[in-house]
């Protein structure tokens, strides 16, 4: 009897790791395949041999991309960085400022403000392409950095992460400070922000990851290739310049590595951000 249970439990262990391992391989393989394709000599790419492991590795594609005058790859990268860092900054600062009074003070009309903020979750950019174009155009901000930064900074999930965290902080600290005569500003700066640091950190990461990945907003609002971020640049390369798959994948690799790197280095905070939003919201 006992031997049978150990046999069954060993079998279930093997099955568990088998399924998890296979899935992990399938999830990760496309990344390996993308990177390896960009590092292979062209002759090994366009062939009916599978070639899981390339015979030689070469940086030829990347050198070619960087020296192509029609393709300002460095500029694309720089644009991606400005747009996503700008959007992250605007998003997190506005969310942090509002999260404190909305979650802990009796502000008349606060419920309405909260509702408006949360309601934007149902209005992603893809749903209001025309409206966003009209508004940004009305401000004369089409094809500018600020024109992309503001729509990308609308990210109610990051607000919710900070809001939920501030909501569950113990009431005693800020109330004691207020009784001692501290201003709202001082309470926010000296008490709430230091205590809410983990949530602000998570929110910052999620805001950056989603802004960097975004394609729709810059695709809608850029009109010249010196303003393209990497995501739009990759599509431009393929559809306008008729680049080879290897070139397009090299751009895709440059587009992918920053977010993967940021995520792997900070995964604990990314996960906690997602699950605090998920368990409460």
């Amino acid at each position: 009897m006992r031997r049978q249970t150990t046999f069954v439990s060993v079998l279930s262990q093997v099955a568990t790791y088998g399924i998890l391992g296979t899935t992990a391989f399938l999830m990760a393989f496309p990344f390996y395949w993308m990177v390896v394709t960009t590092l292979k000599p062209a002759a090994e790419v366009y062939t009916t041999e599978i070639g899981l492991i390339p015979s030689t590795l070469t940086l030829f594609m990347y050198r070619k991309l960087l020296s192509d005058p029609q393709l300002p790859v460095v500029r694309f990268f720089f644009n991606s960085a400005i747009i996503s860092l700008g959007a992250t900054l605007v998003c997190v600062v506005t969310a942090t400022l509002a999260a404190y009074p909305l979650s802990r003070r009796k502000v008349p009309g606060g419920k309405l403000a909260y509702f408006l903020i949360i309601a934007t979750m149902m209005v992603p950019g893809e749903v209001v392409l025309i409206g966003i174009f009209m508004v940004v155009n009305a401000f004369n901000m089409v094809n500018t950095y600020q024109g992309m930064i503001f729509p990308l900074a609308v990210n109610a999930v990051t607000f919710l992460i900070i809001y939920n965290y501030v909501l569950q902080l113990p009431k005693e600290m800020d109330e004691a400070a207020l009784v001692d005569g501290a201003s709202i500003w001082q309470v926010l700066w000296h008490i709430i922000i230091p205590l809410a640091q983990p949530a602000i950190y998570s929110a910052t990461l999620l805001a950056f990851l989603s802004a960097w990945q975004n394609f729709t907003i810059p695709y809608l609002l850029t009109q010249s290739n010196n303003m393209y971020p990497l995501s739009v640049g990759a599509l431009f390369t393929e559809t306008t310049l008729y680049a080879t798959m290897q070139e397009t994948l090299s751009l895709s690799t440059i587009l992918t590595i920053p977010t993967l790197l940021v995520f792997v280095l900070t995964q604990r905070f990314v996960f906690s951000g997602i699950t605090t939003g998920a368990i409460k919201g």
Partner: protein
Amino acid sequence: MVRSTEGERAGVASTLQVPLLRPQSVVIRSIWAERTSYLFILPILLLYVVFSIWPIIQTFHLSFYDAKIIRLGPFVGLKNYASLLNSVGFKQAFGNTIVFTALSILITLVIALVLAVLVNAPRVKFKTFFKVIFFLPVVTSFVAAGYIWKWMYEPSFGVLNTFLALFGIKGPNWLSTIDLALPSMIAVNVWKWIGYFMVILLANLQLIEPEYYEAAAIDGANTLQQFFRITLPLLRVAIGLCVVLGVVNFLRTFALVFVMTQGGPAGRTEVIATFVYKEAFSTGLLRIGFSAAASMVLFALIMIFTIISNRLTIRGE
């Protein structure tokens, strides 16, 4: 709360002393007491109203006009919505969007649930490793994801067909075959989202008290019964959240279509968001009012399904 208590006290005192004073003044005082709070709330409200709420109002407004690029044009009532019902292209995009969303949610949810339960098993090691690997596609741009898969699906040199060739199977042209294009895109979307659903489900699995399972085991329930009687009911809220996330994110699919198929073959992968973009900006017809109406249909879909899935799961708790 020095300021607000002062305000309240003053308010109470004045209503006591001057009974004729209208109650609104108390409201005004409490608003004045929170003036710094309003200053803190103002930036986010401005940002979200101008760049999210106002655009949807604008879109709604435009959907009743025969608008061309910047000219509003004549008011046409519901004519744009009527034209949508007669548009073969829109009906196809609508159907594709629904199929894409529904199948993506269902498949992603089932796979994520299995993975979450397996990773959560007490004796499984490397939990973080698996979580990180499964999550990699989530932090990958849809543009990059689209190109990776387009390359893997490539009919003659793509890894999928060269792999099938090892077994003597001649793989199809995945993205250009009428009946395979949409399923192939759904597969990419599932790959992209499994990690997100799985992390949410896992976090909620870890909240379930082990005593439930111990008690069930003593009563003789096997693993499968435990899953359906304990795990699944307790995950209802988390599953509901995944469905809402799926509704909001899959209905708005845009980049994947532009990168992988441009809507082809024969409109089989056209979705509402790409239909709107093409009608408004790239066909040369610039039918702004008409495509605004299509946007409103997409918005209505998101709203209706979000509310329904909220009612069915989260509220029902």
